[in-house]
């Protein structure tokens, strides 16, 4: 086979090229020819095709994502915004925190263990590339029906993969979500989040500057796995023709990644890099073109110096390979020796593969012959932009008209009791301990809160007790009923969770999981959700620091529920003031904060009892969310509340049951005036939380709520060993515990 050099390409303009097979459209191929003023070489075509894929170029989504920048709230805390590997937030005391949530949905369906494992690996490298030490991970997950046989294949594999990789890296898993819904059958969602911490001065960016600086590839050898995998895979719906067309997925090596982390952190400590980039989707194509594009000069790479696992790989394959556990650094010549020495110490292979040049081109050579000569921006940042048509689906009106508030309600107290037991035992509301117990939450010795708390919290300074809290939330059922409101509810819930644990919300990351952008209805959901999220961020003052879009989550014509997952990061000055969810002190008073309306659209009750999805989701009042958060934070800081639990799916009763089981104490509740027991216990109105107030603090606390205008209703007291609703029913904790804790193991163990 002759090498397709730049020279050869110029001489053979008519030679047929497999652009279609690589997923490019005719006009995209034409544009590449225009940019280069000739046909691309095979290597160039490979680079453009992966970089211009949906996954890497965001071609369908970027016109909508723009709003996150345009509507970004004024926020002094944002040190690095969208566009880098991950955003960076100032959390005070000289510390900066970086965090991001990403999807690995498609690979996880094909090979659950490895797909999920490499998802964790990928997000951890993003965080590392910012200069931060990764300190925690989280995993928002969605699966098909809990009792579907394929869920039994996918879920245990995904969970074992996340645990297998994260545990082996020594990253505590401090939270996430597990949601079952038939709409995810065939399209499970595996999102992964990583949080990292650094000092302000340690922030690193992905850019290659300074002619003469060396480009070093380090980490695993490059192999033939996952060629075009993530990018192509994540850019198309699954073909119904089945297994034979399944593309390769990668196998992760968490041990190698752990070495990469320690090695990279040591390199940062000695300040040896001028720019750094992780290798994820699109591998070297992405790393080289992005580094060069963000820098001031050009770049020259000798591709044949790349260490290979398989000597027969072609240059195109090397450029596209998505082998895991690799990083790329730009290093001043004087620092190269020390850089390589540190790599050797950690048994990490490192190779100088090129250098930054004066010019403006990315040039790649193969045994001395030039195979790539492109303007790097055209590969990395100037991919196609689609303005895909979108339209509100025809069924939307009928769906919203199918009002859940009209569903048959329990006729008497016995029936209410029975439905509540059914609710807390339902797969979505049941304890996820069987899953989260497979994750190490203690490693690193800084975990202050972890599952099943409202948010995960880690201490970042052992002397001052500064800490950060993160929660991830998303409710596809709400978003299906109204994507604009649904996205805002996801943000509101996550924001509330962070505040409930005592931390001040600062910024968000999001993972937008949707069906095919080629369906105008899905595109409308996407447009609405992004608009909702951007608007809400503006009001809450929490900028979007980065995130990820996962499209084509659909089988045939059926898309998943639109599922925007939102992660909120908060800071807490003193983690000893954190608020847990546990009702632990007998005699403390329970207050319900916020207003309860009749809101059952998309509710857990409507799903569990009626298998129904219709009507409108709960209303959002972001000013109210803000006020609630302020009260929760002040209450915790000033010692007025000892426990807090936000209210979301399942309403008051779900939250009370969780807090009681966590603390090992019962509660006696009274239905407040003006509400019926059913609405009080099961409505899902947003902007609410339950708090436990020591009697000595009651006055101070209610005064504060009164003065600030937040409704606070006394609903009961921590007492006994049952959850009792006066005049209605009583359920012993032991019965609740069985109902809540035996479901998931029963389905999966």
């Amino acid at each position, binding site marked *: 086979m002759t090498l397709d050099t730049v020279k050869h390409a110029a001489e053979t303009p008519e030679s047929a090229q497999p652009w279609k097979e690589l997923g490019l459209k005719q006009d995209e191929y034409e544009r590449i020819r225009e940019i280069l003023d000739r046909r691309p070489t095979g290597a160039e075509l490979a680079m453009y095709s992966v970089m211009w894929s949906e996954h890497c170029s965001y071609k369908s989504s970027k016109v909508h994502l723009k709003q996150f920048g345009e509507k970004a709230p004024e926020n002094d805390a944002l040190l690095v915004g969208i566009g880098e590997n991950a955003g960076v937030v100032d959390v005070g005391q000289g510390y900066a925190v970086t965090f991001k949530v990403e999807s690995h949905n498609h690979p996880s369906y*094909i*090979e659950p263990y*490895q797909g999920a494992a490499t998802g964790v690996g990928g997000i951890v490298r993003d965080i590392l590339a910012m200069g931060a030490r990764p300190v925690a991970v989280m995993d928002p997950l969605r699966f098909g029906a809990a009792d579907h046989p394929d869920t039994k294949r996918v879920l245990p594999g995904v969970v074992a993969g996340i645990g297998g990789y994260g545990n082996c890296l020594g990253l505590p898993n401090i939270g996430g979500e597990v949601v079952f819904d038939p709409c995810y059958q065939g399209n499970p969602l595996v999102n992964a989040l990583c949080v990292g911490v650094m000092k302000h001065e340690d922030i690193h960016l992905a850019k290659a500057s300074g002619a003469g600086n060396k480009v070093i590839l380090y980490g*695993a050898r490059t*192999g*033939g*796995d996952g060629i075009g995998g993530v990018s192509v895979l994540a850019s198309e719906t699954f073909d119904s023709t089945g*297994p034979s067309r*399944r593309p*390769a*997925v*990668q*196998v*992760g*090596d968490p*041990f*190698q990644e752990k070495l990469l982390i320690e090695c990279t952190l040591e390199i940062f400590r000695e300040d040896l890099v001028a720019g750094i980039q992780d290798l994820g989707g699109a591998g070297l194509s992405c790393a080289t073109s992005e580094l060069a594009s963000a820098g001031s000069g050009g770049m020259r790479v000798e591709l044949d110096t790349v260490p290979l*696992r*398989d000597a027969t790989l072609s240059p195109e394959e090397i450029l596209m390979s998505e*082998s*895991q556990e690799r990083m790329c650094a730009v290093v001043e010549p004087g620092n190269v020796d020390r850089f390589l020495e540190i790599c050797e110490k950690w*048994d990490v292979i490192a190779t100088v593969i090129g250098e930054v040049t004066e010019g403006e081109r990315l040039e790649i050579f193969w045994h001395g012959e030039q195979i790539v000569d492109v303007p790097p921006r055209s590969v990395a940042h100037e991919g196609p932009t689609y303005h895909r048509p979108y339209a509100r689906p025809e069924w939307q009106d009928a769906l919203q008209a199918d009002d859940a508030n009209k569903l048959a309600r329990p006729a008497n107290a016995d029936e209410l009791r029975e439905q509540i037991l059914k609710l807390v035992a339902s797969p979505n509301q049941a304890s996820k301990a069987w899953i989260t117990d497979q994750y190490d939450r203690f490693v690193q010795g800084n975990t202050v809160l972890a599952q099943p708390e409202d948010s995960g919290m880690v201490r970042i300074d052992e002397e001052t007790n500064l800490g950060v809290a993160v929660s991830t939330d998303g409710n596809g059922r709400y978003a299906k009923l109204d994507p604009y409101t649904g996205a805002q509810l996801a943000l509101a819930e996550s924001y509330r969770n962070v505040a409930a644990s005592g931390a001040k919300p600062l910024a968000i990351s999001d993972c937008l999981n949707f069906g095919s952008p080629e369906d105008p209805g899905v595109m409308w959901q996407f447009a609405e959700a992004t608009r909702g999220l951007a608007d809400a961020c503006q009001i809450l003052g929490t900028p979007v620091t980065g995130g990820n879009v996962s499209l084509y989550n659909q089988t045939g014509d059926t898309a998943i529920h639109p599922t925007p997952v939102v992660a909120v990061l908060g800071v807490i000055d003193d983690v000893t003031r954190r608020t847990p969810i546990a009702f632990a002190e007998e005699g403390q008073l329970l207050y319900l904060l916020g207003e309860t309306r009749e809101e059952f659209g998309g509710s857990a009750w409507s799903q569990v009892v009626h298998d129904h999805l219709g009507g409108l989701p709960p209303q959002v009042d972001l000013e109210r969310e803000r006020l609630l958060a302020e009260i929760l934070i002040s209450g915790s800081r000033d010692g007025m509340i000892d426990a807090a639990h936000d209210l979301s799916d399942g309403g008051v009763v779900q939250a009370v049951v969780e807090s009681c089981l966590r603390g090992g104490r019962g509660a006696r509740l009274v239905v407040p005036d003006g509400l019926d027991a059913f609405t009080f216990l099961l409505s899902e109105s947003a902007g609410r939380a339950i708090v436990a107030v020591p009697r000595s603090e009651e006055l101070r606390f209610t005064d504060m709520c009164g003065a600030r205008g937040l409704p606070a209703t006394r609903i009961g007291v921590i007492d006994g060993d049952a959850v009792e609703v006066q005049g209605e029913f009583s359920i012993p904790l032991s019965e609740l515990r069985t109902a809540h804790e035996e479901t998931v193991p029963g389905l999966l163990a």
Partner: protein
Amino acid sequence: MARVVVDVMLKPEILDPQGQAVQRALPRLGFQGIADVRQGKRFELEVEGPVDEAALARIHEMAETFLANTVIEDFVVKVEEPATAGESK
């Protein structure tokens, strides 16, 4: 009862971190001359009834759909034979 063995190995193009770790350790332990190590799984199945064509076909299917994930793994089904020449222990 007859024994059928299913060997499952990662495909050659797929990274095998375990095999790699073993191989890298060997020289340190004083073992030279091993160019590559791959680590896979071995399943020993005790089969009730005769191991005929039909039984083997079923085991083959079992390997394909369950014991191996053919996205990343290859497998071989063998009827266990008595100890042969090259064997030691």
